[in-house]
């Protein structure tokens, strides 16, 4: 339902060009969840924002690529065309619900706003739809709650309201950018359960951006791992966790404490590269314990290494690892 080809988003800063997203391609299948995993600065959030035209320009610029969504190229849309897709056919939720909700407007008005923008609907019908949306995310006394302001809700409640707003027009695709990172684990479990249930009921596709491999393990059908602006590995979830085909993914999995009992954790030495500087060869090379001469020769491209399994590791592609 969404096909992204060679998306490049660069930031033109005074210090030079930062290649935040550097040529990524992927597709999202209807009704499926795609997990987009990476550490801070890997370009995972920028990828999501690029699709919805939410990159501040300047300094950001989408340099190339296409993103076909139902026959429309999201990257070539005019502002008003995007406006009619965003919120209606693609919903988005963010990490911090406090900065995304308007503190001066009641929850009820914020819930009904997308209805008034995208549909010709009477106030009373909008109110019914808003109440229904609140009920769906588990806020029961909606009548009273609609008249309240964001500060009157807890963090978990605000995230539920964000989800209710994003889903009120029943979008076909939801982009969730670290929606549970600011929440406690028990609240996170509630929100993930909610997303899972709503997705099942509506057959909606989800792009779930997170740094937490545990969340992806439970939620995603397919996983993409990003490093330094590129996708380094992409596979069906079980395949990725049990037969990772990239040294970075393997390193990440080994450095999670819950995969261990006693002994030292594996740690990936060093730091991610500075994306403002051109890279010679594989971006992960300097931190990789399996590095050989071949890794320094040219930028690796992602290729199929098994059915439905793609890796950008040159050594895995040539079968020497």
């Amino acid at each position, binding site marked *: 339902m969404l096909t992204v080809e060679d998306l490049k988003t660069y930031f033109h800063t005074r210090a030079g060009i930062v290649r935040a997203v550097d040529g990524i391609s992927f597709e999202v299948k209807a009704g499926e969840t795609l997990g987009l995993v990476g*550490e*801070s600065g890997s370009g995972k959030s920028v990828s999501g924002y690029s699709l919805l035209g939410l990159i501040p320009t300047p300094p950001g610029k989408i340099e190339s690529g296409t993103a076909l969504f139902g026959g429309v190229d999201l990257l070539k849309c005019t502002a008003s065309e995007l406006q009619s897709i965003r919120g209606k056919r693609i919903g988005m939720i963010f990490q911090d619900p406090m900065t995304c909700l308007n503190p001066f407007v009641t929850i009820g008005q914020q819930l009904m706003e997308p209805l008034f923008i995208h549909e010709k609907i009477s106030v009373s019908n909008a109110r019914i739809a808003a109440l229904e949306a609140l009920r769906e995310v588990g806020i029961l006394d909606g009548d009273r709650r609609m008249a309240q302001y964001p500060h009157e809700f*807890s963090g*978990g*409640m605000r995230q539920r309201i964000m989800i209710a707003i994003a889903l009120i027009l029943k979008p076909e695709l939801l982009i969730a950018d670290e929606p549970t990172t600011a929440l*406690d*684990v*028990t*609240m*996170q*479990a*509630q929100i*993930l*359960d909610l997303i899972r249930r709503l997705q099942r009921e509506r057959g909606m596709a989800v792009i779930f951006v997170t*740094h*937490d*491999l*545990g*969340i*992806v*393990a*439970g939620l995603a059908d397919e996983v993409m791992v990003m490093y330094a602006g590129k996708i380094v590995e992409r596979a069906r*979830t*079980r395949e990725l*966790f*049990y037969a990772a085909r990239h040294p970075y993914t393997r*390193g*990440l*999995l080994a*450095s*999670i*404490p*819950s*995969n*261990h*009992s006693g002994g*030292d*954790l*594996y*740690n*990936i030495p060093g*730091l991610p590269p500075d994306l403002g500087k051109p890279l010679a060869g594989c971006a992960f090379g300097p931190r990789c314990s399996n590095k050989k001469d071949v890794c320094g020769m040219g930028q690796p491209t992602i290729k199929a290494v098994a059915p439905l399994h793609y890796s950008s590791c040159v050594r895995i592609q040539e079968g020497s690892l």
Partner: protein
Amino acid sequence: MKPENLLELQDVRTHFPLTKGTLFPRLTGHVKAVDGVTLDLKRGEVLGLVGESGCGKSTLGRTIIKLIRATSGQISLSHEAQGGVQMIFQDPYSSLNPRMTVFDTLAEPMLVNGFATRATVAVKVAELMHTVGLAPRFMRKYPHEFSGGQRQRIAIARALALKPRILIADEPVSALDVSIQAQILNLLASLRKRLGLSIIFISHDLSVIRHLSDRVAVMYLGKIVELGSTAEIFAKPQHPYTRALLSAIPLPDPDLERNRERVILAGDAPSPINPPSGCAFHPRCAYATFQCSQRQPVLARQGTSETRVACINL
């Protein structure tokens, strides 16, 4: 005080007064951040203190180190631990002074407390940096020139400057990416072995706690609800809250994650201003009975298990 203990807390309470009005403030209530905690820290052990935001775990850490004065209760240090408690904080961006070089940051406590003289301080700073895995040639750099992981190393070095016996680590890896987090956890584990430190490790992340701690204390709304060895608590959690907390951590293993039983708690944790009567967890507990809203449970051993649990239904 028991000979194996370095630190003992007896019924410690830290309450913050709530007032209304600026000219004639009147007391309207208390935030009971820490509400009757009895705990000990043994020589050489890592004690994990786990709970969700607002449960009082950070306030407890700050109360131990006397950044906040306890409202009541006793905090006693064994003779060898006197003056030897240091703390590291969550955010290495705000806990270091941006105008001080690594050298200044590390030299100051040693000079002030007579651990070094002007003549020896450079050598001692270099030693300290080496201990935490930083190259001494970065001595003259400022915090902003370092990455998050390296800054946390500087903060750890600063805490170690006065050779403490006890280290209180308040969410030291929460702000870091997984691959960097692993580096800091390994460092803490090796420091504990090399320097014989006892550590109180405060975190909301159970998998991090499990990795590092010998014993775990689970906090809910200012009280400890379960206290026992890490192995026992993770293998056989007894308190309904501990069980819910354990089942809420996402496991990075698709088969396990999809097939396990989940206890999903409803609602939010109640406010520590007006905690529920009886057991503070009862409004969210699936097993709560009428008795739970009437009686305050006490932390007690159940059967043959060494773990102590505060639940009247066990």
